[in-house]
């Protein structure tokens, strides 16, 4: 199962859990599952994060395919100057 890594801010939805295994073939499916398990978390992720997957940061990554051992790091969306 893909392995989700949460920023500290998001752990308040998971009772402090930082690393969670969640089933899903895409980042979006993972988020849906997270929302089902931890109400509010999915919404927070959709509206306030990018995902680091395989060393690359993806913005709006819902349709990004993930494998069974993929690490997904949800991070805040970035812009710049």
């Amino acid at each position: 199962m893909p392995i989700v890594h949460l920023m500290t801010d998001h752990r308040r939805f998971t009772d402090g859990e930082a690393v969670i295994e969640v089933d899903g073939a895409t980042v979006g499916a993972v988020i849906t599952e997270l929302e089902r398990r931890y109400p509010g978390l999915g919404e927070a992720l959709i509206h306030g994060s990018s995902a680091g997957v395989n060393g690359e940061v993806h913005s709006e990554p819902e349709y990004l395919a993930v494998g069974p051992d993929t690490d997904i790091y949800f991070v805040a969306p970035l812009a710049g100057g």
Partner: protein
Amino acid sequence: MTATENPPTYKWIGTRPIRHDGYDKVTGKARFAADLDLPGQLRGAYLRSPHAHARIVSIDTSAAEAMPGVKSVVTGADFPELAAKNPEHDVSVNVMARDTVLYHGHAVAAVAANTQEAAAAAAAAIVVEYEPLPALFTIDEAMAEGAPLVNETNFTKFVKSDEPSNLGTVTNLERGDVDEAFANADVVIEREFTTASVHQGYIEPHACVVDTGADGKASIWCSSQGHFRVRSSTAEVLGWDVSRIKVTPAEIGGGFGGKTTIYIEPVAVRLSEKAGRPVKIVMSREEVFRATGPAPASKVRARVAANKDGELIALDAWMAYNIGAFGGIAGLIGAMSVASYKFPNLRLEAYSVLTNRPKSAAYRSPSAPHAAFAIESVVDEIAQQLDIDPIELRLKNAAVEGDLTAMGMPHPRIGFIECLEAIRDSEHYRSPVPEGAARGIASGFWFNIGEQSSATVHLNEDGTATVITGSPDIGGSRASMALMAAETLGLDVTRITPLVADTESVGFTDTTEGSRTTFATGMAVVQACRELVDEMRARAATSMGVDLDAVEWVDGEAVAEGQDSMGIPAIAAQAKRTGGPLTATASLNASGAGPSFAVHCCDLEVDEETGHTKVLRYTAAQDAGTAIHPSYVEGQLQGGSVQGIGWALNEEYILNDDGSLDNASFLDYRIPVASDLPMIDTIIVEVPNPSHPYGVRGVGETGIVPPMATLANAISRATGVRLTSLPMSPPNVLRRLNER
């Protein structure tokens, strides 16, 4: 100088051709937004708030409307109310105040008239009745228990709450066991740092020309880092579909993040609509300082624990960013920018704090300089206390691929170690410190971003090519696009014309920000050029009468065994016979932006009687991934360094008690002048980004991150005094020296 790891051989990348847009810029022909005039054009002028926070009781525009030459007047009533949750809500209110003014200089009304003077006189004749409200200017005031609200429509982001708040974000990042690490540390250094609000200081004030038609559409020519964002933001603020707006990017006279948002365009559209005439708005320098930009002020408490051998074992930091009168995420970004050292134990608490000051805007690695000033200062003090060379200490603790950033994600391949080594091995660092001077070093990090880009490549009938993108060129990116196209096509770079097209002539492209243009738009250019190469191979195969598979593309020519090879001009000449015009387009949402690290080194001397700091020598090393046009990479390093030196030494927003800006001019907002500075030596480190076809990371922003700590670290070594407050201006330095 270039330090390169396994340099690939490129024909065009890494060369230094004259930039294509340069000729117009040295002859005065380049058209910036304020240089355009339309027939029948009116000029716009603003009325701005004389209060930092007040309820608008009434606005009477009748006298202004009756004045000669006045064609239209707009106020907040001319713009739709956006829902508080609308992402453009704050921009909408910043563009024109509704029932409340939130900072001194907040736009309250605007006038279009035949002349600038008539518009200004009419704006001044608008009568506004205000009911002053309590105004807060500092982080401490706004975070105080029971503090009045800065902005009643702000709700802390990423938190479910219906209560308005003075906090934009609240962030906690933690790993390891920080308390235990501190309890077991050999050395602990703790300091509190403050930085003043600073402005991006682009030399070109914001300007736009707008025409509206009877068809209900608007054309905008403006100075912006992202004309697609101008289009979407303006449309949202007006309540329009984006299809009603066409935005043409003018040449842009500097941005540095400050032109990633909008201020004047929707106002000009409404003025033009109401008057039925084109309207031009050009901000004055004073307006630029009062009502655009600044980067946040900040307060950071940083505590670092180390072992006696120099291993940094913990960082505990509290960070607050003063972001002005609207919501924002500067504090979150600041916390996330902590990524340079391994720090097995880490605890960050970060706040974005609203105050009744102008809405802060991005500025080159936004939020990272504040955090780096604090952390790089404290880390340096650890090195001083342990008597370890500051580069060696950093090398011992530097993050490498796989180490975690503060947000918990492992770094991809990065070049921090290489930058440290580049400075360590530089002639500068190896040379003795001049007598009476001292040396400092510090590092910086910035993520860089990807996002969406589009590019179109046309092969012209004579075999030249036109490369069209949607990325405004703020520092020479057109030359980089041409070089990447030249490399991919095998075409001489002087036979390529790079252009930035309007919102209707190229695919959607995100703003030039986050050091993304050479990376992401470059990726689109390379992709389009590769498609064009495939198409040219196919056309050559047709011309030659061979299978496509038999044709290879070698150094700009189609080559097939037993056939005369075909160059690009020959293929172009055959285009009509082989299938029509040759053109290719690519659009993408780029992922895999490569972080860029930098390490700076400076020698300086302090006049201990006057508090003046003189920078004698400066070297900036930065990882570019691959330097496409090294001159403009160097330019980014040098420009960022000097902006940082200005931030370190003299730049600051000075507020009067009523919240008005006391130094809204280049006379007293003191950006560095040529005589303040030495040459800025550069070392381009090239650790290619594996996610980009040519290894590009993007270099635009990181250069501003290290200078403040670089100078503070040198001043500490020069005087024995650790400065923790920016700017380190002569009065501030002398005060601290007196306290010795």
